[in-house]
Structure formats: C-alpha cells, structure tokens
C-alpha cells in the first residue's frame, strides 16, 4: 500500500474525531511552541548581549601599559609610561588590523562661556569613529591634518553639549580645556550608558597630538585601541601584537612585559556561555513538555485502539495485513504529532514575537530550532505511537469483531 494511501486513511480517521485529535495534539503543540519560544529567547538574549558588546567597539583589541615597580611597590596596570603613538603606527601595519587609534585620557574641568563641567577628555585619531562605531549627530570629526597640526578642535559628547551649551548649537563655539581654547567642530550621536553603567556621552574627543602637547605634556599615551578586520582575527591580532611590542620595547627572555593586550572576546565568550546555559536549561524544560505531549499521544492512541477494536477487526476481515494496521496507527500518531508540531511552530513564532516585544530584543528564531522541534515532534509520534499501533496490529480479529 502506498504511503499516500496510508496517510489518507490516517487523515480521514483523525478528521472524523476532530476535537479529540486537537486535544491530543495540544501536548505536542505546547511542547513544540515551548521549544521554539525558549530557543528564541536564548538567541534573542545572546544577540542582545552581542549587540551591547559590539557597541563598545568593533572587534576591539586594547593595549594598555603594564605596571611599574618602584622600590618594591608595584603600581596597577596602565601606570607605566611606555606606550607611544609610534607603537600604534607599527601595529597598524600588522595584517588583519583594520584601524588603530592612540588613546590619551584626561579628566578635567571644561568651561564654555559661563558654564563649566567636569568631564573626560579623550585624545584620539580620526579612526576613533570607526573603531568605536560611533557616528556624529552634527558637524564633522577631526582629520589626519588636524592630528598632524595638533589642532585645537574638539568633538563633544551629547551630555557635554547639554551641560555647556543648553539650548544652542555648539558648532563653531569655543570650549576651554585647562584654559586652552578648543573649537567645537562636531557632536557625537547620543549613545547612552555603557554595559558598565557609565554615561558614554559624557566625553570630549580631541586630536591625540593636541592632548599630549597641550594637556598631558608627555610623549606617552594611555592606551591603543585596535580594530581587527574580523571577529575571527581578534585572537591572531592579539597574538601578533605581543611579540611586536616586546621587540619594540626591547623586552627579552623572562622579563615581564611592560604592556598588556586585552580584547572583549573573553567578556563576549563569558556572556555567550551564560546565554548558552540559559538556552540549554530552557530547551530542557521544553523537551520535557514535548515528552509529556508524546505520552499524551500514546494515551489517546491506546484509548483510540480500544475504542476502535471492532473497526480494526473489520479491517483485518476485509483483508488488511497486520503490517497495514500497524502502519495505519503509527501514521495516525505521526500525523497527529506532525500536525501538532506544525501548529506548535506557528504558535511558537507568534509567542517569540510577543516575548521579543516585551524583552525589547530582536526576535531571533534559528531555523534549525524549528526543524529540530518539528523532527522531534514527529519522532515523538513514532516512538509513542508504536506501542498502541502494535497492540492494534496483533488483535485477534474474532475477538475484535465481537468487542462491544
């Protein structure tokens, strides 16, 4: 007998008992919907974490100076004055490095007209906007020429604009940074809080040369921010930077490095691992509900076999082989569970949409989770349908025909 015929027989039998079929499917529907929704929650959370981490910078690798030991007292990382803009230029020539910017960080009081504000002044290169993936809301960023001339120009974060120039455009105005006048040429787009809770908009960016010459007065920088050309090249880039700087800083043998290289990959991995654990947990719960759905199918199929004993006897009498009976009930179970699976996927997609609205994260439904949920649902039908089906196939036709 063809599979199509078998499916037709099964389908007719199920349509004959619409309500019961639907109730039987309910377990699988909920199970599959739960799988789809939970996986989607996991994926959505992961995407949201990834977006936050990427917001800090694009494939970012950071080099900071190491610690110094003075008379046995060790300072913390970043205290050593070892890193120079030339190190940055050397790193920029490495393969897989997309961009480099030196970073000079000064916290100081700034004044514009009668307003003043304490903020963080960052010296950077024009690659800053690329590396930090940060656009301007108005004006323009400074150029390599500005850097070469140590030009007294600045780009303000939105918080600084709000505090120094309430109600007006700051473009073209002057800001005094440690009494040095800087002309405002641009405003950074508002970005809000960082993952660590800092207000990222509370900052002024100026050419790093200007920061070194006019603010810090030395030839060292606080950090180098490097963008790898791809997520996969973050680790290779980290691994290349270390020997390059060791060579440049003449560090040999067992001597401690005077710098350290870090990336956000570790943080990203940790966050991603957390999301994975969540996902497994949720998927486990979902799998249990699918299992319960499967047991529901078995239950109803057993009832159905008992209830249809006479029908089975008749089918045997009119020439059904026992394999045909087995196939019929097995296919009924699979059709039930697959239909339940399909409805569950529809429900799951709707549910994921709703959850993503409440969770304020992008709706991500990995296609493989849908395929997996569906296949698992169908397999549930095979597994839990087999026992009732084989019970039906082995009925004694005489007893079955007499069954009341």
């Amino acid at each position, binding site marked *: *007998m063809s599979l199509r*015929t078998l499916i037709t*027989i099964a389908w*007719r039998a199920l349509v*004959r008992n619409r309500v019961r079929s639907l109730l039987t499917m309910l377990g699988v529907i909920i199970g599959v919907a739960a799988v789809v929704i939970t996986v989607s929650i996991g994926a959505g959370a992961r995407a949201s974490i990834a977006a936050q981490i990427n917001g800090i910078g694009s494939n970012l690798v950071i080099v900071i100076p190491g610690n110094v030991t003075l008379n046995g007292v060790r300072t913390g990382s970043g205290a050593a004055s070892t890193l120079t803009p030339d190190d940055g230029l050397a790193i920029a020539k490495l393969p897989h490095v997309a961009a480099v910017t030196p970073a000079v960080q000064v916290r100081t009081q700034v004044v514009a007209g009668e307003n003043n504000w304490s903020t963080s002044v960052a010296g950077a290169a024009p690659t800053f906007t690329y590396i930090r993936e940060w656009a301007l809301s108005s004006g323009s960023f400074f150029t390599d020429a500005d850097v070469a001339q140590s030009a007294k120009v600045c780009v303000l974060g939105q918080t600084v604009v709000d505090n120094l120039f309430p109600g007006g455009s700051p473009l073209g105005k002057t800001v005094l940074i440690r009494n040095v006048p800087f002309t405002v040429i641009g405003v950074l787009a508002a970005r809000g809080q960082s993952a660590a809770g800092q207000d990222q908009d509370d900052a002024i960016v100026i050419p790093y040369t200007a920061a070194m010459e006019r603010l810090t007065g030395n030839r060292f920088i606080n950090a180098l921010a490097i963008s790898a050309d791809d997520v996969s090249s973050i680790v290779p880039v980290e691994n290349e930077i270390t020997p390059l700087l060791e060579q440049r800083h003449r560090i040999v043998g067992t001597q401690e490095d005077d710098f350290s290289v870090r990336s956000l990959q570790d943080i990203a991995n940790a966050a991603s691992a957390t999301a994975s654990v969540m996902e497994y947990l949720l998927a486990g719960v979902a799998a249990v509900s699918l299992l319960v759905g499967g047991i529901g199918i078995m239950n109803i199929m057993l009832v159905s076999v008992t209830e249809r004993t*006479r*029908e089975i*006897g*008749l*089918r*045997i*009498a*009119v*020439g*059904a*082989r*026992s*394999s*045909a009976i087995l196939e019929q009930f097995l296919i009924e179970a699979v059709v039930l569970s697959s239909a339940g699976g399909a409805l569950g996927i529809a429900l799951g997609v709707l549910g994921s949409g709703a959850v993503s609205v409440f969770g304020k994260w992008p709706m991500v439904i990995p296609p493989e989770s849908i395929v997996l949920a569906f296949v698992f649902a169908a397999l549930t039908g095979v597994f839990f349908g087999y026992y009732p089906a084989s019970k039906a196939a082995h009925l004694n*036709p*005489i007893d079955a*025909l007499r069954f009341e």
Partner: protein
Amino acid sequence: MTQTPVVRLENLRKTYAMGDQEVVALDGVDLTLEHGEFVAVMGASGSGKSTLLHMIGLLDRPTSGLYLLEGQDVSQLDGDSLADLRSRRLGFVFQSYNLLARTTSVENVELPMIYAGVPDAERRRRALAALETVGIADMAYHVSNQMSGGQQQRVAIARALVNDPGLILADEPTGALDTKSSQEIMDLFARLNRERGITVLLVTHEPDVGRRAKRIVTFRDGRIVSDTPVAGAQLDGVPA
C-alpha cells in the same frame, strides 16, 4: 463439469483451552461447498456454526484437519497470505454491519479495495457500481449512521462483493433487522447468488431466513447433524 469446490473441509477440528478444560468447538467437520451454492448454516448458539464461519473466513486456524479454499491448502499459510486471500476471495457480512462510523457509504465500500491495492479512480468507480448493485446508489455519499439498518446492511454487502470474491460469508446478516428488511436482504443474497453465481454461506438461527437458502446444514455440539437441500428452494429467489 467438474469444478474445484470453493471450500472443502475434511475432518476439521477446533479445540480451545478454557482454563484446564478443553472445549471442542468443531468436532470433525466434513463439508464441501460447490460454486454457486447458497448454504445456510443453522444451529443453537454454541453449536459451532460461528467457529465454522471464522474458520472458512480464515480468521481462525483449525486445530487439525484439512481446509482447501478453491483447491488451495490454507493451513500452512502465513498471516499476510491469509490477509490477501481474505481480500481477494472472501467477502464478509456481519450482524452489526460494522461500517466505519461517520464515513460515507462509498468510502466504506472502498475499504477492501484500499487493502487490495486498487488505484484511486478505479476504487471509486467500482464502489459506486457495487452500491448500484445493492440498490442504494443514491445513498453513496450518505454517512453510515444516518441510514436505516437495512440500508447499512446493503452497504456492508456492497463492501463484501466489491473485490469480486467467489464466496460471501454472512454471520447472522438479518439478526438486527426487522422482517421486511430481512426479506429484502435475503432477496439481495439470492439475487447475487443467482445472477452473479457468488457462493453464499450464511449463518443464522432463524428458520425463516435459513429456508431462503438452497441447502441447510445444521450443527449441534460441533458436528454436522443434517445437511439437506431446501425443497423447492424458493424457485430461485422469487420474492416471498
């Protein structure tokens, strides 16, 4: 013309174990059904007539003895072969019709053809033809539970003859019907027997029904106690 008999039973025995007792259902039955016969098997309940029907219908296996169905020894066949023989050679009619609930007549009649592997279009055509034969072509798309007992039994008979079997086995086919419907059903059997040459074996305990056959075999305690042709034999089914 010597033809192979439809059914030949020789010293057929069937015993059941019931607890530690052995119950003899058939105790050495010899019976031959020739082509075109119309036989009523009669007897009290427990006389073995139903067991005989199940045996001939290949739903049960004899404990010992010989059963040739159209010359073929069926005692050694496996389950699938028996199913195929049931499908192609035999038609069953039951007291309680045994139609599929909430299913149209034509779909009920198609059922045996599904298992015989008849293609879709031909299945529908033959099912409608069979319903025509039993005289309820106009009810082809009626659902079984909306029909009277007599009509349902006609659907069941259409189902029994749709695969063109040589032998129709009817187990108390009029047991659930009123007198008028009973007569109509018996007329139908007589007509199928006469016009199509289908061999009919029916089990009944109603003498009126038994008399419509051409030959009456009476059972008692698992044995045949009489086997007689019916006098006049209703002159080939002239309506009573």
